[in-house]
């Protein structure tokens, strides 16, 4: 289907609500999250979103957008002023009947260059500890993959380790179970899915390094799993309302096509990803800290080029300090925050076979930020990034730096 006809179809689906909005916007009712922040975990992020519903329409809708200006230079070479419309995301949710829900997330990236269904799943609750989810699911690896909405973050760019080392946003057709249980201040949850997965491009791509997101460019992956094996992903998370949340997650399976027409054409190769994530708010200071760290192990053919490494690790930590919360320009409860993000990724852990030297191929980055939130749904953010990238041989690093300013809001 062409993009234009797809857009027309989408417009058709939304037409009733749009027409109502033109008549009387008060017909819309904003659905705030029923759970207080204290009662939510990262795994709830797909539902923990503001939604609108109109009259008796059985579908509630919502979404968010992100737009940026940036001026970034690399080793003294700048592309000047760049204006970007990064994302326009639409949520549609429906409670089909008691304890049966449907939620979807449709994303347009960089205008209409990339259109993808990031999430579209049916949830059936048999018990709070036993829910069935099926459809296009977000694999629960780390925290960012499921909790990625732009307005939630103080930075114009998504974390590099979460989007380029881990492939956020990473979703696949699949099924699984999840559940959650509360007990006073304690809460724990689990998720376990089987889904479609990766392919050979993770070690054969134009990045020239092991690159899990390469699979996302395979347009057929929601229809055909080239390996014939499921990708297993699961997460266990525990939260204490006074301490914070800790998540441990795993994703793995066979990633290469090793059978064709019933014949074995290659060795079976696997990958394993482990991640730990956490978040907490320091009492009194209200400093919010969140981060994740992941380790990736991949079986790479012995005689292949070592630029495609068999081990990677990296992560990020965000520290957000509210410095002013009051009525600003008439917005009650507006806030101004200082933020800092530290990131590190080692794309290729190991030593060069020929020399014994440590492989470079890494980056670290520090991003400072100042944000203004007129309300809980909208953010204006100014960031400065300083980043160093080293090549495979660990030659002098390439320096990247510059400012970006962005707006992002739920609607």
């Amino acid at each position, binding site marked *: 289907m062409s993009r234009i006809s797809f857009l027309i179809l989408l417009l058709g689906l939304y037409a009733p609500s749009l027409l109502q909005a033109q008549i009387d916007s008060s017909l819309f009712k904003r659905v705030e999250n029923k759970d207080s922040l204290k009662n939510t975990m990262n795994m709830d992020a797909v539902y923990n979103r503001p939604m609108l519903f109109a009259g008796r329409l059985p579908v509630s809708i919502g979404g968010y957008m992100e737009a940026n200006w940036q001026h970034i230079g690399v080793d003294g070479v700048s592309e000047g002023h760049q204006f970007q419309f990064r994302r326009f995301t639409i949520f549609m949710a429906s409670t089909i009947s008691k304890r049966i829900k449907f939620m979807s997330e449709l994303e347009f990236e960089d205008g209409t260059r990339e259109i993808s269904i990031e999430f579209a799943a049916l949830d059936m609750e048999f018990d709070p500890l036993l829910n069935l989810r099926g459809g296009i699911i977000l694999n629960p690896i780390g925290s960012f993959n499921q909790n990625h909405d732009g307005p939630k973050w103080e930075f114009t760019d998504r974390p590099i380790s979460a989007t380029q080392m881990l492939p956020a946003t990473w979703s696949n057709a699949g099924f699984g179970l999840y559940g959650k249980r509360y007990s006073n201040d304690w809460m724990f949850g689990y998720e376990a899915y089987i889904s479609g997965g990766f392919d*050979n491009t993770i070690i054969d791509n*134009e990045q020239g390094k092991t690159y899990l997101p390469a699979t996302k460019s395979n347009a057929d992956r929601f229809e055909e799993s080239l390996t014939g094996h499921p990708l297993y992903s699961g997460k266990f998370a525990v939260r204490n309302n006074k301490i914070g949340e800790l998540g441990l997650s795993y994703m793995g399976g066979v990633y290469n096509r090793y059978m064709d027409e019933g014949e074995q054409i290659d060795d079976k190769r696997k990958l394993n990803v482990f991640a730990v994530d956490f978040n907490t708010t320091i009492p009194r200071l209200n400093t919010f800290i969140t981060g994740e760290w992941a380790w990736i192990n991949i079986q790479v053919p012995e*005689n292949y*080029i070592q630029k495609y490494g068999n081990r990677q690790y990296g992560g990020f930590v965000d520290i957000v300090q509210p410095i002013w919360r009051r009525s600003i320009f008439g917005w009650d409860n507006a806030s101004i925050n200082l933020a800092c993000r530290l990131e590190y990724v080692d794309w290729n852990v190991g030593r*060069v076979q020929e020399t014994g030297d440590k492989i470079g191929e890494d980056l670290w980055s520090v991003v400072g930020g100042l944000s203004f939130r007129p309300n809980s749904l909208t953010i204006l953010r100014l960031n400065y990034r300083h980043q160093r990238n080293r090549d495979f*041989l660990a*030659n002098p690093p390439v320096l990247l730096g510059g*400012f970006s300013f962005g707006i992002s809001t739920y609607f």
Partner: protein
Amino acid sequence: MMKKSHIVIGVIVALIIGVQSCERFEPKLPPEDSLLDGPMDGLNFAEMQRFLDGDQTFEEVFTIEKGLGPLFVANSCVSCHAGDGKGNPFSTVTRFGQIDATGNQFLHLGGPQLQNRAIPGYDPEVLPAGATYTRLTPPAVTGMGLLEFVPDAVLLSMADPEDRDGDGISGRVNWVNIPAFIRPRSESGSKDGKYIGRFGKKASVYDLLQQTVSAFSEDMGISTFYNPIDLFSGMPIDPEIATQKVNNVSFYLQTLKAPIPRNQNDPEVVRGKALFTQISCSSCHTPQLKTGNAPIKALAFQEFYPYTDLLLHDMGPELDDGYTEGSATTAEWRTPPLWGLGLAPDSQGGRYFLMHDGRANSIEQAIELHGGEASRVRQNYRSLSPGEKESLIKFLKSL
């Protein structure tokens, strides 16, 4: 309390100043003389476009879908020549199967180059039993267009194959067969259907187009219009890369700037430069050459300082690996240009890998490995005082 209007004005002024001055907060351009990449001066608009297109292909990572392999050594040009500089043993190529001017006896077994890597599902080549071989570290690729257009007559004038001047240094050209797709330069003379080679460690490559086509084929396993042969099967196949891209890479190599020397007024460097000539390093590492006519205006009739004579010299048994190309003997190596020597660690992972196979980890070690015709010069170096040696090394690092 500050008035709201003051805040608004303050924010607007800060924004205007910020947007106008944001470039000041970005990483600065490294000094021009610390970089090897970049175009030479004097290219016109069209030439600059071709340079940029070639640069893009030079940095392109080739995948299986784009024709990589099945057997290969590297998956991009830049993986062997980071920053257009010298390579590291990681990207060393192994060449095998030829011991004299009669030609390569192992072409039917995968010669002359070993493809030591393979895409998933394939096995790489292994050295055939009985084949002599050498390992070659990728050279820097800067300033090569200037080297290409030094007239053959200049090379022949520097050659002294019989050592008639009695200085112990002979130097001769390598007469090589050239592929059918190469159109010889008008000034090139031939001898028995062979032409003077000037690129490659054995001076067995005639020009940069031949070098480019050979690299696509033998280094990356990518067939071209010029050489549409699949290395794995030995069969003709369709070109796997657009001919324009191949031509652009060749053009890019022709028009990369020459390395810019540094600290030339430093008294120690000046002293080292004098010692370089005094102990006869310059007998082979000829400081200055001049191009003749060239199809690219910026390359024509240019004086430049590569510190090479582009000739073959017998370097003695220490560097004799028992492998050769063209009419060179196994102990003969082409004088490598010394320009950019001081910047080699920036592309070799922070340290030196010098000589043809990277066996020397310092300039001093490299000098000590000079035997054969260079024995006397090496002896001259050994007789220098420690201070003089230091000056000489400093000069070499300034290149």
